[in-house]
């Protein structure tokens, strides 16, 4: 355990400069891919590796690439989705900040496999300093002939541009990202057509998460089969987990997929146990969008098997007793946490970030927020819980993009697993009033003239 693929050199001083990075095995994959391999070979290696999208959905990357429309006469584009805004997730930020060249290197190999000559990194607008880091890295790579025209004399051209987001969570959704990149309002597009057929400016486009693209370097260097040996089952390779919440050592950890959750929380190598010796109450294993699981279900699955940090194991039991690996935003909550307040906090976020395009998400998130606020402040009713589940189910699966599902799951799962706590709020309004957190109301402080 403890193999480092993405974070191997991350603690070396000045690894963000080209020379230091090159000295530590940097850009070897670009040399290998461009000089010795055809684009099809690169694609084959990625397919063999079993690499899955690290942005949340876990879709096999090689398969996604193979969907790219060929022979359309239009240029293909590779977009690097660095609009990381999921509450609880901060892995891409860590990677780009510490090791920007690794991100570029993965992008160059991937763009070569896809036959793209232009690639964009869409960075979240709040990451102002990272934009500078990435732009400096691009300039250095260009000066050294790794980017630009005729890379390393191979005849392959690639330009990478940085585009900053305006600070909207929804622009992390791939079609909203494309709209935003085109300079339009960041509303998700209606699919089909999928980006692989008609993406940015109507051209075939692949959108990948930063971590996914960074992993391509190691795959090219060492081969897809080697990568597939790491991990467990269909969850191959390593994953960055941004651990937060009530744990002793909140940080970004790289681990082989398949590590037991119990070990991840309690071993000193990772989270180092719960803060102040408190008891673990619940875990949100993959960022705020995924269902929350209570202690007994996160450590062991419903069938009694130990729960592992992998796409399959975390999803075991479906939405009844399982969750998702998501984007790896691991949030551990101790027994002092109020689940009603926690759910309200998440719902408030989704209400604030809903783009307003389709009605279930636009209206439903606001409604859930208001009902949860009543519960939190001791003004709730016993019937509110059933109504919340009903509202959430009316949103789930009926929206254009997955934001609606992401807003619904935390509410449904919190009520499923912690119903007593919600009931307690409704039964003891006076107590709830006293213990209510000063509700931070985000009354749409941001009102930007985002004209359609």
């Amino acid at each position, binding site marked *: 355990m403890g193999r480092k693929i993405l974070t191997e050199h991350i603690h070396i001083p000045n690894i963000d400069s080209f020379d230091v990075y090159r000295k530590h095995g940097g850009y070897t994959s670009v040399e290998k891919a461009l000089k010795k391999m055809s684009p099809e070979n690169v694609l084959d290696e990625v397919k063999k590796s079993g690499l899955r999208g690290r942005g949340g959905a876990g879709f096999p990357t090689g398969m996604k690439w193979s969907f790219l429309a060929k022979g359309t006469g239009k240029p293909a584009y590779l977009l690097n989705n660095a609009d990381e805004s999921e509450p609880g997730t901060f892995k891409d930020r860590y990677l780009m900040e510490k090791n920007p060249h690794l991100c570029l290197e993965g992008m160059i190999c991937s763009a070569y496999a896809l036959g793209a000559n232009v690639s964009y990194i869409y960075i979240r607008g709040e990451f102002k300093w990272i934009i500078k880091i990435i732009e400096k890295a691009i300039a250095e790579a260009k000066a050294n002939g790794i980017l630009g025209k005729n890379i390393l004399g191979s005849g392959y051209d690639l330009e990478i541009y940085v585009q900053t987001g305006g600070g909207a969570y929804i622009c992390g959704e791939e079609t909203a990202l494309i709209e935003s990149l085109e300079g339009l309002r960041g509303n998700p597009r*209606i699919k089909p057509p999928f980006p692989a057929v008609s993406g940015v400016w109507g051209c075939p486009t692949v959108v990948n998460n930063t971590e996914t693209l960074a992993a391509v370097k190691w795959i090219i260097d060492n081969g897809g089969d080697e990568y597939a040996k790491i991990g467990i089952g269909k969850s191959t390779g390593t994953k960055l987990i941004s651990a937060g919440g009530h744990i002793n050592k909140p940080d970004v950890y790289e681990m082989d997929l398949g590590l037991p959750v119990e070990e991840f929380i309690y071993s000193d190598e990772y989270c180092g146990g719960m803060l102040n010796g408190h008891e673990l109450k619940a875990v949100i294993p993959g960022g705020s969008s995924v269902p929350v699981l209570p202690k007994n279900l996160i450590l062991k699955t419903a069938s009694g098997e130990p729960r592992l940090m992998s796409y399959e194991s975390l999803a075991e039991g479906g939405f009844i007793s399982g969750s998702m690996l998501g984007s790896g935003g691991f949030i551990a909550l101790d027994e002092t946490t109020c689940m009603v307040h926690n759910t309200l906090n998440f719902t408030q976020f989704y209400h604030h970030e809903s783009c307003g395009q389709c009605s279930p998400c636009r209206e439903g998130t606001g*409604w859930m927020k208001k009902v949860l606020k009543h519960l939190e402040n001791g003004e709730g009713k016993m019937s509110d819980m059933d109504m919340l589940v009903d509202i959430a189910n009316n949103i789930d699966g*009926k929206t254009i993009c997955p934001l609606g599902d992401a807003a619904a799951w935390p509410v449904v799962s919190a009520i499923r697993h912690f119903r007593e706590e919600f009931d307690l709020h409704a039964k003891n309004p006076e107590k709830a009033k006293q213990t209510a957190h000063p509700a931070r109301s985000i009354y749409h402080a941001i009102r*930007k003239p985002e004209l359609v």
Partner: protein
Amino acid sequence: MSTVKITFDNHVIEVEAGTTIMNAARKVGGDIVPPAMCYYTTLHGSGGKCRACLVKVAQSSEKDPRPMPKLIASCVTPVQDGMVVENITNEEVLNARKGIVEFLLLNHPLDCPICDQAGECDLQDFSYQHGLATTRTEEKRREFDKIDIGPNIKLHMTRCILCFRCTQVADQLCNSRVHGMIGRGDVTEISTYISNVIDQDFSGNMIDVCPVGALTDKNFRFKDRVWFNKPLDAHRECSKCCGHVVLWMHGEEIRRVTGRKDEYNELKEFICNECRFEKKELSDWVVEGPRAIKRGSVIAQNHYTLEPKEETKAVAAKS
């Protein structure tokens, strides 16, 4: 043109490839047609937003990699060969539609008694047909600052369901678009660029395409309920548009002029602002006759009867 066969609520429909599920269902017509609040046949890029037309695709073609069955928006999804679609035969679809009505009415002010759209409102019809008679919400409904968007069109933002049709009218019919949506989420609102008003030619069609009373005719405001008017089909020679309109009469007075809506409340032909706002004399128009109104429509409640056709008269005289 190749054709594909789909099964829609046990009807086998054969349509051209590329047709949407909604339009395939409209070929059959009747109850099985999914409702539409944001889709508009003649506006490019409309649809997919309100989710009122969700249907269950029980089985998709082999080419589609997406896992089925799944609820999808019928107005924007093209048919695929061998697709099996369920609409009113599926309980889940009907329940989902109830949920959509609830969401659309959640922040709607329900001020129908003072709304000019009442009687010809898509949202009224939709909630009457598919919604519940009760409400579960006790929350305050959202409010907006009132803004003036132009001389001919009155904006009631509280009634808007954000179908985006009006922006598509501006993009596709007017020579320039000066309005759009600002903000996001449930505080998204229609607004114009600073010191701009909506008075471009053909902008009056926004009133007709608006499914609710968010955009209404300023010249018609509070003058009449639509069911007290008698609609007449009429036309005139117009250099800019087709000139085919409906005159809404109160006695001898033309209260307002609108385009001709079909059975799905859609305009097939758009009319210019001159025809709509300026030609308010009967002498401006060649009246073709009374407009056929569906018996179920509230407009027919005004004991409004069609003049019997000549043939019917003849038959009646014989008997």
